[in-house]
């Protein structure tokens, strides 16, 4: 297995879990990021809290990378068409399906929501098929 990092993945996951718990415990809301993102720009209710959460999502990694000086790995396609199509589909799909990796994948599954379990299985299978098809055309990231 190439670049498999179970330890840092688990530690990162536990920290993400703590953030979800803190957000829920204090604000009474679930930290589904597609919902927070959508509401921050399209809904007046809780707008400033949502924008501050998104700001935190940027400040956290910024401070972490600044203080640890760990070089960051960031491999992404250089195709603008792919970026635009993917961004659009992620925005549309997460709102239509009511959640993303955090909302369904973490919050929903930990509440044993059948909807979230089905959604998570669906988007993972859909992602796997997409990557498989891209690879048949020689697209490897």
């Amino acid at each position, binding site marked *: 297995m190439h670049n498999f990092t179970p330890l840092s993945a688990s530690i990162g996951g536990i920290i993400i879990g703590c953030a979800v718990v803190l957000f829920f415990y204090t604000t009474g809301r679930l930290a589904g990021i597609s919902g927070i993102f959508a509401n921050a720009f399209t809904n007046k209710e809780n707008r400033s809290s949502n924008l501050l959460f998104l700001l935190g999502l940027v400040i956290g990694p910024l401070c972490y990378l600044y203080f640890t000086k760990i070089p960051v790995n960031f491999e992404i396609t250089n195709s603008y068409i792919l970026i635009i199509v993917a961004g659009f589909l992620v925005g549309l799909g997460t709102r239509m399906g009511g959640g993303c990796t955090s909302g369904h994948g973490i919050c929903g*599954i930990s509440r044993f929501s059948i909807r979230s379990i089905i959604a998570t299985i669906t988007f993972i299978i859909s992602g796997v098929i997409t990557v498989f098809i891209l690879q048949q055309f020689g697209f490897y990231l």
Partner: protein
Amino acid sequence: MSEKLFSLVSGIIFGVGLVISGMTNPGKVVSFLSVTHNWDASLIFVMGGAIFVTAPIFYILKNKKKSSLGINVKLPQKKDLDKKLFIGSCLFGLGWGLVGLCPGPAVSSIAIFDPITLIFLLAMLCGVITNKYI
């Protein structure tokens, strides 16, 4: 006021978790989805680590009506497995597989200062708005 402060702090902690987990790297997410070629199972450990914390605490807090700040608890009420849940998740998976970015890492990757992520976020916002008209 404190609601805003805790939103910011939760976002910071979430972002730190994302970068430590490696999920801010789209290449690593694509490797998770690439089951037939150099598969990297790390993402399962990220979700597992998070759920390990959230599941027991959500269970303990499940009957709470108000948060610690006295705000009414808001939880999704939908139970039905409708077409939108399925089609939406298929479209999301398609976009996720194309580039390897989902909403959290897409926002966090602003910290990497690659302008391509801003284009992704702008396209994502267009997708969000489009859904309002469907």
